[in-house]
């Protein structure tokens, strides 16, 4: 018996290697650099590192392949997902630098960026996974780092509380996910996604799935649904989002969610597409419940941060709806479904991190996150108010912002899949969401703030301002130029070609 040690194709993992190197460099800098240089150097290094990873990623565009014995895959899906994750990472660095340095009990910059980088790395690896074990380990890497980030402002009781809730329920959900994966393994005798698919296709050959497979499938949906914050597995979301330092909230609303979406696509579309008749319905039902619940409960929130937490639950619903539109027939999936989810993710990254960035901006002025803290913002500082308006309008899904295009593509995908009812419920849910998004806008523009509670510029926020500007431009421009992005997203279908070519050999 010989051991098969192949030399992996390091070029494929270059972006991930860069991010890993960044994590190591940042933690070393944290240890050896004088404290007063942390802010500039570590922030700069992080930006450069993530930028380099994006560049490395873009050179891979259009390539496919797998390495590390099929554990790591390079295909359209992984490239797009990694791009979204890295963009979200850059935006997070932009909005969190001054917050971490000066606000909220003064957190350690180096540790913060180390954890952010590890969370990003975990999400990226999940997106590139070709094996259930990789998905599990990657998603846990991203989750563990995010648990800690949530509790990062540990001297504030609410931060620790949010982190603890997220952590404990996360452990619970991980166990469920693991149980589901165990059952899938038991039904197919394999952990590799392509092998699972091949085995399932061979076993089923037109028959209905047996209870064992369904059991594993449903438990995996529960476990990943938790990471995605799908109703009824969303309970950690409002509390953790509320308690976490605001830049972390922006971060965790995108990166771990992107990781979970990637895992969902990998597991469902790539691994279990033989069962797609079953899971499309499960996901459609979850999507329906999620979008309505999130939007309805968001109405009664008085705290903007918490309101956005519920709104992010609702957005999970839209993404799940896009995923539910996959109908894999004879190995050909509805191309637009996953593309629409991918596009939605990138739009969501810009508009949601943007909205949190404005909250961070308000906090930089010594204000809180309640609705009252936003009253009269437009007269005091019109530009942040305008930016917030743009982000909220985009979250609402009104043209010409990027959010509109996101919903538009999801709805088109649903119509292609003959799921009119879900498309209609997206429209209805968006209409409900206007209620609470517009309330923030109304408060900013039409309410006056009590005179004694004036703003104070207490800390410099140049990088934050740059970040908000970038996101405003992104929200306004990426929608109009959605063509190239959707083309890039359409590449996801080449994830099937790897298995096909492997089978052909």
């Amino acid at each position, binding site marked *: 018996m010989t051991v098969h040690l192949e030399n992996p194709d390091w070029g494929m993992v270059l972006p991930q290697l860069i991010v890993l190197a960044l994590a190591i460099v940042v933690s070393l800098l944290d240890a050896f650099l004088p404290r007063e240089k942390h802010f500039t150097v570590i922030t700069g290094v992080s930006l450069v590192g993530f930028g380099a990873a994006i560049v490395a990623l873009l050179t891979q565009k259009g390539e496919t392949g797998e390495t590390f014995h099929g554990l790591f895959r390079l295909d359209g899906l992984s490239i797009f997902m990694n791009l979204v994750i890295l963009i979200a990472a850059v935006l997070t660095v932009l909005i969190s630098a001054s917050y971490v340095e000066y606000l909220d009990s003064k957190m350690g910059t180096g540790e913060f960026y180390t954890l952010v980088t590890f969370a990003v790395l975990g999400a990226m690896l999940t997106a590139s996974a070709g094996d259930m074990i990789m998905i599990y380990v990657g998603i846990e890497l991203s989750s563990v780092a995010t648990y800690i980030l949530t509790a990062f402002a540990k001297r504030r009781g609410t931060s620790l509380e949010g982190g*603890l809730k997220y952590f404990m*329920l996360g452990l619970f959900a991980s166990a469920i996910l693991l149980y589901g994966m165990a059952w899938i393994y038991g039904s197919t005798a394999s952990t590799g996604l392509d092998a699972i698919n091949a085995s399932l296709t061979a076993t089923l050959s037109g028959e209905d*799935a047996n*209870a064992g497979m369904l*059991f594993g499938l*449903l438990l995996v949906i529960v476990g990943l649904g938790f990471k995605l914050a799908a109703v009824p597995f969303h309970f950690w979301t409002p509390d953790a989002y509320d308690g976490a330092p605001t830049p972390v909230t922006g971060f965790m609303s995108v990166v771990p969610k992107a990781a979970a979406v990637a895992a969902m696509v990998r597991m469902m579309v790539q691994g279990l597409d033989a069962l797609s008749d*079953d899971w499309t319905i*499960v996901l459609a039902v979850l999507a329906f419940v999620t979008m309505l619940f999130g939007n309805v409960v968001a109405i*009664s929130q008085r705290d903007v941060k918490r309101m956005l937490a519920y709104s992010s639950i609702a957005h999970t619903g839209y993404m799940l709806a896009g995923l539910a539109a996959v109908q894999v027939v004879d190995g050909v999936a509805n191309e637009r479904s996953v593309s629409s989810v991918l596009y939605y993710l990138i739009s969501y990254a810009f508009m949601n991190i943007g909205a949190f960035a404005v909250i961070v901006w308000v906090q930089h002025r010594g204000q809180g996150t309640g609705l009252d803290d936003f009253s009269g913002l437009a007269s005091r500082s019109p530009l942040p108010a305008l930016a917030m308006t743009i982000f909220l309008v985009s979250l609402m899904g009104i043209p010409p912002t990027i959010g509109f295009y996101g919903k*538009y593509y999801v709805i088109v995908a649903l119509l292609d899949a003959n799921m009119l009812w879900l498309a209609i419920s997206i429209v209805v849910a968006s209409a409900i969401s206007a209620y609470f998004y517009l309330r923030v806008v109304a408060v900013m523009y039409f309410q006056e703030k009590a005179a004694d509670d004036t703003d104070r510029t207490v800390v410099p926020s140049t990088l934050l301002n740059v970040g908000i500007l970038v996101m405003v431009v992104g929200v306004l421009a990426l929608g109009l130029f959605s063509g190239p992005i959707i083309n890039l997203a359409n590449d996801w279908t080449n994830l099937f070609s790897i298995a096909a070519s492997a089978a052909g050999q």
Partner: protein
Amino acid sequence: MADLLYLIPLLPLVAFVINILWGRSTIRGNAHWIAIPAAVGSWVLSIITFREIYTDHHAISQRLFTWIPAGDFNIVVSLYADQLTAVMLLVVTSIGMLVCIYSVGYMHGEDGYYRFYSYIPLFIFSMLMLVLADNLLTLFIFWEAVGLCSYLLIGYYFRRRSAGNAAKKAFIVNRVGDLAFGIGIMLTYWTFDSIYFHGEDGILEKAYHFADYGISEGTIMAIGILLFIGACGKSAQFPLHIWLPDAMEGPTPVSALIHAATMVTAGIYMSARSYTIFIGSENAMLFVAVIGSITAFMAASIALTQHDIKKVVAYSTVSQLGYMAFALGTGAWVAAIFHLMTHAFFKGLLFLGSGSVIHGMHGEQDMRKMGGLRKHMPITFWTFLIGSAANAGIFPLAGFWSKDEIIVGAWVSDSHYGKVAAIIGLCAAFLTALYMFRLVFLVFFGEERFDSHVHPHESGPWMAVPLVILAVASIFVGFVGFPPEDGAFHEFLHHAFEHVHGHEVSMTMTYTFGIVSTVVALSGVAVAYITYMRKAINTDELAERFSGIYNFLYNKWYVDEFFMAAVVNPMKDIANFLWKVVDVRIIDGTVNGVGTSIVAISARLRRVQTGSVANYALEIGVGMVVLLGVFLVAFGNLF
């Protein structure tokens, strides 16, 4: 140059963004230093584009990006510049640039100076995009955008109630036209399966060979009429012209740019752009011609009786737009565009000139309180005189060439209506000369009728220079159309109308009509001279004797009143009914009910989030168990 086409609209857009963002806080009084370079840059680029199209004889198109790439309906945003567009580009950027410069003097010290210099570049951008659009949808979007700019600028003095009302009126009347236009676009897409103008499968080709595609002539007619109703709204054709005179509430430079030279010609441009649709249906052509000639005559007759200097010029604009429309309707496509171009210059000049008068008179607009201004503002007087003569069609100024060509074109056209239209055109030409010179004589000659404390003064160089430039242009721009029917302009533009088969016009006919229209125009001037300089005819007495006609004209043919009685009041009654009964009782009740119940549900549902981790875990567990139970039973082969 083909690669730089996008820069033409981009420059004003950038200027708009800069001014709207930082205008109030930092730029303030220097806003024009952002807008003017942008306008000049666009102008220079337009000239380069024009040159390239002129030398190469082919259109330039630049594909920007795919806007919505969803399935079969995918919209590519691309810019397209052919000969017609090139002419429009030149007109828009030239007038836009001059108005930007002029407004530095005119708008000096106004509140919201930056606002003015944000909206004007925004308008220029939208207008440029409108003429560069290669499909109906993009055109429609920017059609609405220019409407929006117009709305914003009419309501510029938003503290004045009448300005707000005028803005609303313009918006609503335009809506009526846009409704028809929108239906027309949908019908176009439905019929031709395309919204692009050009190319093998474009609207123009398909409409020209409509019979080959199994499209009935009735459909073509319907599309043509719908599109032209849209054009009526924007280009102020009877009976949708009523908003344009009211739009004079806006600042005068705005009137010059938007409500005389560019935006109002968008309807003419759009009709010319989709000319094969009109060629396909004689009835649609007849419709256009009738509407156009009615407008030309009616507006000219109304202009005779108005006292407000801007109203006279505004009705003159409506009248000239009517000329363009009946030129379109009688198949004189090139002549229509030719008149569009010359009109832009001399009407821009007239508006800016009257703006200069108003500025010099400290805001007075009533001609009865002017007089003898010739001595006080010589530059304004001379330039205004040139503009008036051009408008009246006096040889050899710009207006003469284009107007003469329209009348000849109408006379020789195939349609029977053409000869009628030509005669109406001649009558309107007489009236034009009459009211234009009435204006000149009342304002610049005779005794000084203004109050003693008003001291008219000549405007500064910011305003005077554009006037002089436009005056020079008004003198010479007509010569690009010389010799008539065969000038450089026609040579250039007929490429854009390749499916048009021109009529041979004999030299004799050209000379005949040239002489006739000169005589008509001069007689109009003469009558004006006799009446208003010599006072040989007492106008008040005349008005009293023919009080019926006078009142009819003075009240603008009662079009507004007609709309009031026939449309607005019944609509109000219906709306009241709908509001009080249907809306408040039924719809509001339902909507509010749904709204309150959602809020109530929300308040209940939020209590699920108890804050206790144990509860959360239990809820997740219940969710899991239910999910498992339902789907294992539903999909598993258990039973």
